[in-house]
């Protein structure tokens, strides 16, 4: 159960992630990523890795469980 989250503090809104992983990441009205909160299916694991590696601020993170309250 791996989900992708973005650190909104380090994210600078380059939008590269949405280009590389459009199945999972969309940009909001201001160019910041909105990430699908569901667990990432196996077939997208490579896309996810690529987007993470391409982010200039390394703002994308994989989490094995949802952070609780």
């Amino acid at each position, binding site marked *: 159960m791996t989900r992708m989250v973005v650190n909104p503090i380090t994210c600078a809104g380059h939008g590269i992630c949405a280009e590389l992983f459009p199945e999972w990441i969309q940009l909001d009205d*201001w160019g910041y990523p909105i990430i699908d909160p569901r667990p990432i299916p196996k077939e997208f694991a490579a896309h996810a890795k690529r987007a993470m590696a391409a982010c200039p601020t390394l703002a994308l993170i994989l989490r094995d469980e949802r952070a609780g309250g």
Partner: protein
Amino acid sequence: MSTTTPAFEGAAIEPGVLPRLLPARPLRTIAGHVEHYGPVPQRTDALILEIERSGLKGHGGAGFPTGVKMQAVAQRRGSSVVVANGTEGEPASAKDKTLLSIAPHLVLDGAVLAGTAVGAREVVVCVDRAFPQIAEIVAAAIDERAARAVDPLPIRMEQAPHRYIAGEESALVAWLNGGDAKPGFVPPRPFEKGVGGRPTLVQNVETLAHVALIARFGAAWFRSLGTKADPGSALVTCTGGFARTGVSEIPLGISMPALFRATGTEISQVQAVLIGGYFGTWLPPDALDSVRLGSASLRTQDASFGCGVLFALPKDRCGLAESAHVTRWLADQNAGQCGPCVNGLDAIARAMAALVKGDRKGDAARHLDRWIDMVKGRGACKLPDGTARFVESSVRVFADEIRRHKRNGPCSACSAAPLFPLPRVGGWR
């Protein structure tokens, strides 16, 4: 706002059993405090269990179960730190300042008791540096305790920046660690890695005052007021259009009409009540007759008790304009860190201002719902979520007002100076 005049006597609602937290006269010396409340219990080994049994929930806004949080800190390795959060950045709230000035030792008792129970090495009491008179009272109370060596662990006070965001727990911890009072990306949360890297229990000062009383009188006593789901009492700040404004203590779960009676206010005199502070929800007139100040009843209105602020909107005020002022103020509180917060809240505030002007082209209305959804959950802290919640409720409750403004442009009350307090804030350090 005055921090010491009660809006009403708690006893007017529940004869003889209230107030618990707000003694009739300030108890600033240990002698007076102990005479009133009795000595601090020495044993704290079962305190966390007793707090869990009491059902105490945090009074800083989020309403998280205090026992669960204490347990989480107690289970971490190594010694921890307790932060008593008395910064009270919520502009309309005065209950924490009132509590600190009337019963400082109750807060300190609770912080030390909680600290002993979770294995803390020190207690840090944080107050807002814009209120030096509160800081003076707290400092004097700490000094007297130190001189008499009453506590098993040291207490220090810190005067935090005068900013709304500074009271958010990760921001407070960041500032105590020498940085800006800006939220961090969590996890790690303060209970995992906080002040000096140690597990840190951050509790609102009112929460800690309840801890001090539960340690003395027990969970059953605590539960003798309030309801099963919302046990105990709570401080409230009644402000805006109530006939009598100020801080008082209520049993949780009382009805809104009972609160109105206690403040000498007719429900028919107000348009709506904002509950829970600036992250809160407007209760429309038809809800005021029936709603109770308990979680289940408030949930039916998408509302929660929050930090106990109740703001009554007088009949002669424009609810839309007042809400737009608050939205702009909230947007301006952003810590400049997260894109969706910095850009999204500004866009939302501009849309609210456009609705006040009439939004002839309909652009604002068209975007607002989307933007509200778009910002939720997308900041490092809850500023976007809290603002979204407030705006969502504003456009719902003042829907008729929005239509009237669309038809006629700004109303006669729109140009009035805001009734909500919208303080200028200081720097980040």
